[in-house]
């Protein structure tokens, strides 16, 4: 069967391996583009959030390429993302496609439903549960390598001597990672890719600003949705650290904070899980301040309710912890130039603030 999946950051490389390992043909949706967005906005409700529109657009593009099934994640609310699957399915039906959307709900909610859905994917190609476990582990390893490499690239970019070097090397790293097929190979490319990035000529004496990135998961992870914000900031000489990596919760190499800790630090401001990544935006901002970051950028799709609720709370955090927060609401109308101007102004202010603290400013 031809199976597609949501396009998000670099993760398609791992998802592709998983689907192929299960004996299906993986249809990788094209990298989101203007075309994706046009397809998406045309068929989505006006006030659906940007991730909804991009995902619908990329499903439609994948269907043009022959996809017969979409595998995506579900959710239990109150964030809208948990209902995407149902509505996407209805919209596809209405457009006359019989592509099936398989929504993986949390196994902790209904384990039989979860296993049943996996069986419906591995059953037809005759893959045993044993093989599934092996393939899944391999894909997971790959996902971790992808995260490691991306994390490292953001650490190096602000120091690069020649602007654009890191981004070029990073895309070469992705190609190599894509080639790796077995666990030893994956471990090998991890070392090679790290070396490639570490070999980029850098100027370590530079004083860089540190900015944390918080917000809604999709717009934080997908560069098309946030107009390559981490690259843009990196090339302005800002070291970015984002609060979300998919492989986060299994290890600490990406500066991972346990969800429990994040919720705990956010609790004086809000002690209710109000959906999406709202509470994490608050908690991570506080932690960034404690770790000496210069500022925080909150990314959110337009009409994203959890982040709207987080926004006034972040204002209070700014006052209490003295950490500036720039909130950016993204939608299909957001232009790169406008965002760039806002980021430049923000970074200038952060630099001035730091200089003042260090007594350099006049």
């Amino acid at each position, binding site marked *: 069967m031809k199976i597609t999946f949501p396009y998000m950051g670099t993760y398609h490389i791992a998802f592709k391996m998983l689907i192929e390992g299960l004996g299906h043909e993986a249809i990788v949706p094209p990298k989101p583009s203007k075309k994706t967005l046009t397809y998406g906005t045309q068929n989505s409700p006006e006030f659906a959030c940007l991730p909804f529109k991009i995902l619908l657009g990329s499903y439609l593009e994948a269907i043009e390429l022959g996809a017969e099934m979409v595998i995506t994640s579900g959710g239990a609310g109150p964030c809208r993302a948990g*209902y995407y699957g149902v509505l996407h399915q209805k919209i596809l039906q209405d457009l006359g496609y019989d592509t099936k959307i398989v929504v993986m709900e949390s196994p902790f909610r209904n384990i039989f439903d979860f296993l049943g859905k996996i069986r419906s994917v591995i059953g037809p190609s005759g893959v045993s549960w044993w093989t599934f476990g092996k393939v899944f582990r391999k894909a997971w390893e790959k996902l971790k390598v992808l995260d490691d490499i991306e994390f490292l690239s953001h650490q190096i970019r602000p120091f690069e001597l020649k602007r654009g070097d890191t981004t070029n090397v990073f895309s070469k790293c992705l190609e190599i990672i894509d080639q790796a097929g077995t666990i030893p190979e994956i471990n090998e490319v991890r070392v090679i890719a790290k070396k490639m990035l570490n070999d980029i000529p850098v100027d370590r004496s530079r004083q860089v600003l540190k900015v944390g990135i918080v917000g809604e998961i999709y717009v934080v992870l997908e560069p098309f949705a946030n107009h390559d914000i981490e690259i843009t900031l990196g090339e302005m000489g800002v070291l970015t650290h984002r609060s979300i990596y998919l492989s986060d919760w299994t290890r600490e190499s990406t500066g991972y904070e346990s969800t429990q800790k994040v919720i705990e630090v956010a609790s004086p401001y809000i002690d209710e899980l109000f959906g999406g990544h709202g509470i994490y935006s608050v908690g991570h901002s506080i932690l960034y301040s404690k770790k000496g970051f210069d500022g925080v950028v909150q990314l959110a799709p337009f009409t994203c309710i959890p982040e709207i609720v987080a926004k006034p*709370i972040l204002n209070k955090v700014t006052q209490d912890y003295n950490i500036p927060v720039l909130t950016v609401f993204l939608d299909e109308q957001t232009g790169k130039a406008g965002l760039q101007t806002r980021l430049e102004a923000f970074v200038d202010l952060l630099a001035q603030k730091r200089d003042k603290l260090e007594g350099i400013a006049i």
Partner: protein
Amino acid sequence: MPVKIGIPRALAYYAYYPFWKEFFQKLGLETVISQVTTKQILDDGVKEAVTDACVPIKVFHGHVRDLKDKADYIFVPRLVSINKEKTVTFCPKFLGLPNMIKTSMTGLPPLIDIRVDLKKGKLELFKICYRLGRKFDVGLWTIVKAYSSGMKAQAKYQQLLNEQYSPIEAVNILDGEDSLLANSTDPKLKFAVLGFPYTIYDKFVNVDIINKLRKLGIKVLTAEMVPPKILLQQAKKVPKNLFWNFSNQVLRAALYYLDNSKVDGIIHVTAFGCGPDAMVDKMIELEAKQRGKIPFMSITIDEHTGEAGLMTRIEAFVDMLALRRERS
């Protein structure tokens, strides 16, 4: 002098006011309600609230501001769930409401931001009431009495809704005023006007759409007029429940009206930038399209909604449906 509890005339007011009013009054406290939404209240709300919030949230901020000097406490409960449906909660803005108010407004009297999560168990509501009562040093027996008369008031209110009174009319009747059914007895057409109670019944926010329709000879039916039991039966028609209590009511009411052919048209009133409504609106649109019998229109309101624009759209919709009926 009794303690004054301020209740904002916004959001959950349109669904659960009779209970809380009766409960607080029987505790021996005084309840103060904010005035009906006006331009001033909306403007105040817009000033206080976060820019990206929807208009009902902004209006809520305005009502809280209105109560600032009139009450000793302001009642802003955190609504998490109000029935046993496990997957159903409220819009994140309801979940974070007390925090939004606390962080964006200053100089307020203390908030009563009690957490209402009724899916925990049958006695949960009583426990909440008990805690509230103890806060004001009221004895157990009085709390029990206040609780039961609150429940009675809410049941009576629900019964009035089932008899097709609107929440506002029902509250008036509970207060002892006479209110005749404003729907005409011999209507030209029947419309379902669906949306969250706080957008449908706030005359100022939606430019009085219900009375405008009534003046055109339309009988207006709303989600509140479908008895809760029948609403719940509609749940199985969708593959997965929505996560938000009020949205479920709207979608289920839409399915009920669609399948029972009780109406000539459906109007969905939604607030600009409303997250849950983006989903609900498309679901109703697709369900209506699939059945292909009942026309559907969606109206978006925000703080700039003008009377003329809305009127034109309503008149056009009514004329088209009247024409359609004549032809058939």
